[in-house]
């Protein structure tokens, strides 16, 4: 466990050394959400209808931004070899890296989401559901993205390959996340989609570190 903690702390230290790199997803997210009202009319009632999709798709695209570099730096400088040869289970270390990545890139999106929800005209209950759905759904986005990043880490032009590979895998999170907010906005039961998001979270957080560690080992061959 101390090895996982060491990896987690190192990610935070590296983020502190280059804050601009880690702020990019949040800035991108805010810009995307602000562009939509500018594209139609600020008081257009359609905005309220589209708000769940705007916030969720924005979060999805923002989460994709930093995914490629999760393992790239470690591959380039040789740290990846040391991670795979360490006296600690590789899936645990991969899980720690992805957890740190979620904390640094996705948690700010979750925290900014209520503000965007209110700005886009969502009711208080829908804003709460939006926050909960993103809290449950963004780890799935990050862990799925991390798995795809591990699969493509040795590939040239991974930046092009990665979104094509990862977007279909992330679709269920967007469907259930957006669905929960939409249901809350029109007064329908919203619990079921949240349960599905929770199930996806449990699956991705427990299984994908193993798959990603396997993919990284394969990349070293």
């Amino acid at each position, binding site marked *: 466990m*101390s*090895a996982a*903690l*060491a*990896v987690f*702390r*190192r990610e935070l*230290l*590296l983020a502190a*050394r*280059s804050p601009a790199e880690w702020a990019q997803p949040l800035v991108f997210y805010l810009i995307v959400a602000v562009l939509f009202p500018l594209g139609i009319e600020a008081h257009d009632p359609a905005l309220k209808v589209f708000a769940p999709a705007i916030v969720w798709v924005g979060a999805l695209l923002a989460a994709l931004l930093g995914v490629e570099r999760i393992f790239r*730096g470690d591959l*380039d*400088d*040789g*740290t990846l*070899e*040391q*991670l*795979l*040869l*360490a*006296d*600690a289970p590789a899936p645990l*270390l991969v899980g720690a890296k992805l957890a740190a990545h979620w904390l640094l890139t996705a948690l700010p999106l979750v925290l900014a989401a209520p503000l965007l929800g209110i700005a886009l005209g969502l009711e208080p209950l829908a804003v709460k559901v939006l926050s909960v759905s993103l809290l449950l759904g963004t780890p799935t986005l990050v862990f799925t993205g991390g798995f795809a990043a591990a699969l493509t880490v040795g590939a040239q032009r991974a930046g092009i390959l990665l979104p094509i590979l990862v977007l279909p895998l992330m679709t269920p999170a967007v469907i259930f996340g957006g669905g929960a907010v939409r249901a809350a906005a029109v007064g329908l039961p919203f619990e079921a989609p949240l349960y599905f998001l929770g199930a996806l979270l449990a699956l991705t957080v427990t299984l994908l570190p193993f798959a990603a560690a396997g993919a990284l080992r394969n990349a*070293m*061959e």
Partner: protein
Amino acid sequence: MPSLLVRNLAVARGDRKVVEGLGLAVAGGEILHIQGRNGAGKTSLLEVLCGLRQPAAGEVEGQPEPAQRHWLGHKNALNPALSPEENLRFWCALNGHPADRVLPALQEVGLKALRQRPCGRLSTGQRRRAALARLLAAPRPWWFLDEPLAGLDHAGIELLARLLGGHAAGGGAALVTSHQPLPEGLAGVRHLELRP
């Protein structure tokens, strides 16, 4: 310390077998110098012996456990944004070693004064020395060193010779790839020439 035994080993890089039918034994106190031209399969063989890569055929017996081996690849495993001290402390924490030998190790490789400078601002040779400091920060009986001479100046090569000599004299084993000759005067050195 059990010996590393290799029987009828084949190593492939992609579809191409770079090593075939190899047999060897390495015991404590020995330094195996793996030589060969570019593309002969030195790095691939070392990766197989260390456990980073699966062999295409054959057996490797007595492969050391993670806590028993050091891997120094041709990349230094130093994040350019972190200092040598931070990189070494991370490596110690990753492997469950106390960090109390980090500063003596950096002093021994001549980097104590530069220990807080980001590795991205060090020269190639200084980064190689910082990577060599890992060998001293946590003593382990097996060393797998891939082109350790690369980037080192004369004093750096002498330092490496001293480290290898001390390691072998203490009963440790080292497998070293290089297309350059190892420093003269090292005891217990055996040579393995790979031909493409």
